C-alpha cells in the first residue's frame, strides 16, 4: 500500500467518509461487514480501509471494492461521428442487445466498461449520431453500467453540497454558496469567540468549526432539549475541536440578560430534541409538505447512515463502562448524576462566557423567525464585529432590518441573495448548465457598533440618515474623502 505519511490520511474504521460518484456525495460511517447502498449500487467498505482518502474504487462482484489506479476516458477511437441528425428516425429498435442479453453479460461478471462498449457496437444509430450525441449516449450508458466510486474526506465544501442536494429540508435550504458567504461575511477564523444559532443539523456549526480549526471558542445556542449535530459529526473533527465548543439553551437567554439566570431548571435531555426537529419545519404549505415527503425518503436513508456513527460511539462507551452486569443499575444512577453535574458546570461556564458580551461575531441560520434571535443575541457581541443572519425567506429579514434600524448599534446592513450558475465547458459546446437552483436563501449582514443608549433618539435618526442608501449622497462623499 501507499506511503500514508507522505500521501495524507488513510481511511480508518469508524471514520466518517464521503462516497462520491460524479457530482453525487453521500456521507457514511466506515464500518466492516456493512452493506452500503449508493447510487443504486451496493457494496462493502471493508477493502477500502487502509487506503488513502481520495482513492477511486470499482465495485466488483460480491460488492467488493477494488482500487482503480487510473480513471481512463472511454475509448474515443471507436467514434465515427455523423454530422447532423437529419437521417435518424427513432423507431425504438436501434439497440440490438436485449435486456436479457445485458443481464447475461452482467451475470458473466463482465465489467461495466465492457458492457458499454458492447452497447455501442450493437447500436445501429450510434455511428449516425453527431459527436455530441455520441458523447451523451456514452455518458448515459457509462453511468448506468459502470460502478466507480471515490472515497473522500469530508469538508464543508463536500458536506454542504451533499446536504443541499440530498436533504435541503434539514438545512433550511441553505445553499452551499450562501453558507460560503456567511463564513466570509462573518470573518470566521481561528481565535474568534463565536456565537452560532442554527437548526441546520449542525452543518453551519461544523463549517464554523472547520474555519476556526480548534482555535478560539464557539457558543452554540440551541432550542429545545439540546443541540442537533448530526452533520457536525460527519466532519470527523479531532476531539480537541470540541474542547472549546459550548452550548447554551435559547430558553435561558432572556433570564441571562435580565440577571435572573439560574441553572436550577435545565432544559430536558437532548434525546427529546429529535422529535422537535422532526415535527416542525416552519411551513404550513401543502406543497412544501409534499416536497419534503419526497425528500424524507433519501433523508431517512442518509440520516440513518450518519446516526449509526453516533450509535456506534455510544455502544463503545457503554461496552467500556459496564464491566459487571450486577453493578449496572448503581453505575447508571451514579453516571447520570455525574453527567448532570457536568452539564450544570458547563452551563455555568457558558453563561459566564456570554455574560462577558464580547463575542467576535454572530451567525444565525435557523427555522425560527430570525428577528427575536438576532435582536437578543446581538447583546452578547462586542462592538465592531460582523453578524450574519440566514433565512430561507426574504420577508423575515425585512423585519430584522427594520427592527435593527430602530434598535441602533449596527451599521452596514445589507440584505442579499446570491445567484449560482454552473457551466459545462467542453470543446465547442460550452454553456451554462441547463438547470440551476432557483434560490439559495437570503442573508442579512452587518457590523455592530457601540450602542449609544442614552442618546438613542437622536442617534437613531442620524443613523437612519447615515445609512440611507442614497446614490447622490455617496457620490458627494466620495469627492470629500
Amino acid at each position, binding site marked *: 500500500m501507499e506511503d500514508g505519511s507522505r500521501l495524507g490520511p488513510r481511511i480508518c474504521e469508524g471514520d466518517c467518509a464521503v462516497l462520491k460518484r460524479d457530482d453525487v456525495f453521500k456521507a457514511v460511517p466506515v464500518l466492516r461487514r456493512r452493506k452500503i447502498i449508493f447510487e443504486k449500487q451496493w457494496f462493502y467498505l471493508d477493502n477500502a480501509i487502509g487506503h488513502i482518502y481520495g482513492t477511486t474504487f470499482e465495485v466488483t462482484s460480491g460488492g467488493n471494492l477494488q482500487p482503480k489506479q487510473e480513471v481512463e476516458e472511454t475509448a474515443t477511437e471507436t467514434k465515427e461521428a455523423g454530422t*447532423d*441528425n*437529419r437521417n435518424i*428516425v427513432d423507431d425504438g429498435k436501434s439497440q440490438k442487445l436485449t435486456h436479457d442479453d445485458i443481464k447475461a453479460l452482467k451475470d458473466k461478471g463482465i465489467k461495466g466498461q465492457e458492457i458499454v462498449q458492447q452497447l455501442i457496437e450493437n447500436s445501429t444509430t450510434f455511428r449516425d449520431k*453527431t459527436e455530441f450525441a455520441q458523447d451523451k449516449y456514452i455518458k448515459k450508458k457509462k453511468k448506468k453500467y459502470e460502478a466507480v466510486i471515490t472515497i473522500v474526506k469530508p469538508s464543508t465544501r463536500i458536506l454542504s453540497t451533499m446536504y443541499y442536494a440530498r436533504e435541503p429540508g434539514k438545512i433550511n435550504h441553505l445553499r452551499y454558496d450562501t453558507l460560503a458567504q456567511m463564513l466570509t461575511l462573518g470573518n470566521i477564523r481561528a481565535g474568534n469567540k463565536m456565537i452560532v444559532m442554527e437548526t441546520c443539523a449542525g452543518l453551519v456549526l461544523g463549517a464554523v468549526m472547520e474555519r476556526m480549526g480548534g482555535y478560539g471558542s464557539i457558543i452554540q445556542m440551541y*432550542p*429545545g*432539549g439540546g443541540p442537533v449535530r448530526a452533520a457536525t459529526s460527519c466532519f470527523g473533527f479531532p476531539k480537541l475541536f470540541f474542547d472549546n465548543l459550548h452550548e447554551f*439553551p*435559547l*430558553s*435561558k*437567554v*432572556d*433570564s441571562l440578560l*435580565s440577571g*435572573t*439566570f*439560574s441553572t*436550577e*431548571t*435545565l*432544559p*430536558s435531555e437532548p434525546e*427529546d430534541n429529535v422529535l422537535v426537529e422532526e415535527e*416542525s419545519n*416552519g*411551513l*404550513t*404549505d401543502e*406543497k*412544501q409538505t409534499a*416536497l419534503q415527503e419526497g425528500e424524507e425518503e433519501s433523508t431517512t436513508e442518509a440520516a440513518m447512515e450518519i446516526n449509526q456513527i453516533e450509535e456506534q460511539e455510544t455502544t463503545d462507551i457503554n461496552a467500556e463502562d459496564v464491566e459487571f452486569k450486577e453493578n449496572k443499575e448503581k453505575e447508571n444512577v451514579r453516571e447520570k*448524576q455525574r453527567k*448532570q453535574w457536568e452539564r450544570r458546570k458547563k452551563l455555568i461556564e457558558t453563561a459566564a462566557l456570554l455574560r462577558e458580551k464580547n463575542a467576535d461575531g454572530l451567525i444565525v441560520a*435557523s*427555522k*425560527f*423567525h430570525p428577528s*427575536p*434571535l438576532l435582536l*437578543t443575541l446581538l447583546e452578547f457581541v462586542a462592538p465592531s464585529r460582523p453578524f450574519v443572519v440566514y433565512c430561507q*425567506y*426574504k*420577508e*423575515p429579514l425585512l423585519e430584522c432590518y427594520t427592527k435593527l434600524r430602530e434598535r441602533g448599534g449596527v451599521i452596514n446592513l445589507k440584505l442579499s441573495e446570491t445567484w449560482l*450558475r*454552473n457551466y459545462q465547458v467542453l470543446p*465547442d*459546446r*460550452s*454553456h*451554462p*448548465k*441547463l*438547470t*440551476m*437552483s*432557483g*434560490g439559495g436563501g437570503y442573508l442579512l449582514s452587518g457590523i455592530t457598533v457601540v450602542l449609544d443608549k442614552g442618546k438613542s433618539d437622536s442617534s437613531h435618526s442620524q443613523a437612519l440618515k447615515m445609512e440611507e442608501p442614497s446614490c447622490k449622497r455617496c457620490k458627494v462623499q466620495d469627492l470629500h474623502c
Partner: protein
Amino acid sequence: MSFVEYGDTIKDGDTAIVFLGHESMFPVKVQHGTVTQTKYGVIRHSMDLIGKKYGSKVTCSKGGWVFILHPTPELWTMNLPHRTQILYSTDISIITMMLELKPGSIVCESGTGSGSLSHALIRTVAPTGHLYTVEFHQQRAEKAREEFREHGVEHLVTVTNQDVCKNGFGVSNIADAVFLDIPSPWEAIGHAKSALKAEGGRICSFSPCIEQVQRTCLAMEEYGFTEINTLEILLRVYNVRTISLQIPDLGKAAEDNSSAGFDSSNPSNQGSPCANLQQGTVQFKSGVPLREMVGHTGYLTFATKSLF
C-alpha cells in the same frame, strides 16, 4: 377556432386544451363521436365539448372536472408534441420584440423543429404577414405542415424542406426578420442577409453553446450586420405560499418558573419549562423561488442588416 383568432364556442375540428390542474394539461382534437380519457374519467366530444363555451368547466364521467381552453401559441408551446428541443415563451417573447415583428411582417425561420416558435410568429404577423419556415428533416416538415393546416393558419405560412445552410430560405429581399435555430448558424448568415429586404431588417440566432455564438457573431460582422447584441433571458417563477415561522422560545414565559426553582434533576419536572410556553408563530405570504429552474436555454444574438 384558429390560432390567429378567438372563437367563443368549441367546434368540431378545433384543437382545444384540456386543463386538469396546475401545469397539467393536454391538447385534444375535437371530433364528433370521439371520447378522450382523463384521470377524472371520459370526456365525450359531442356531448361535453361541441357547442360549449371556451373556458367552460366540463364534468368528466367519474365526476371530476376539467376546463376546456381556447388554444393560444403559448398553450400550444406548453403542450405540443416534441419532435426536437423547443423554444419556450420566455425566449419567444424577447425574440418577437427584438425582431420588431407585428402584423404584416414577413419572417423567415429555420429550423421549424416542433413548430413552437412558428405558431407564435404566425400569430404576431397575421393577418397580412407571412412566415417562411425551412426544415431540413422531412418528417418534421411534413408534420409541421399538417399542424398548421389543423390550426387554421396554413395561409400564413410556407414550409420548405431543405438545408438552409446550402439552399437558403427560398426567398430573397422580402423578409423583415430572420430567425435561426440551427447547429451552425454562421453558415446561414449569407442566406439570411439575402432573404432580408434591401432596406434592412433584423436577425436573431439562437444557440445553446457559446462557441456557436462566437462564430455566428463573426459571420454577422463579416456580412455587415450592425447592432450585434447577444443576450440571455431566464424566467424565475415564484410559488405563492403562506409561510409560518415559529417564534423562538427565549425563556420569557419561563422566567416565573425559574424563580420557583424547580429541580431539573426531578425527571417529572424536566419538561415543564417547555410545556407552559406559548410557542407563537408568525404568518406571512411569500413568493418562494422554485428549488430548480431552467438555468439555460440558449444565447440569443440579435443584429440589424443596415441600410448600407
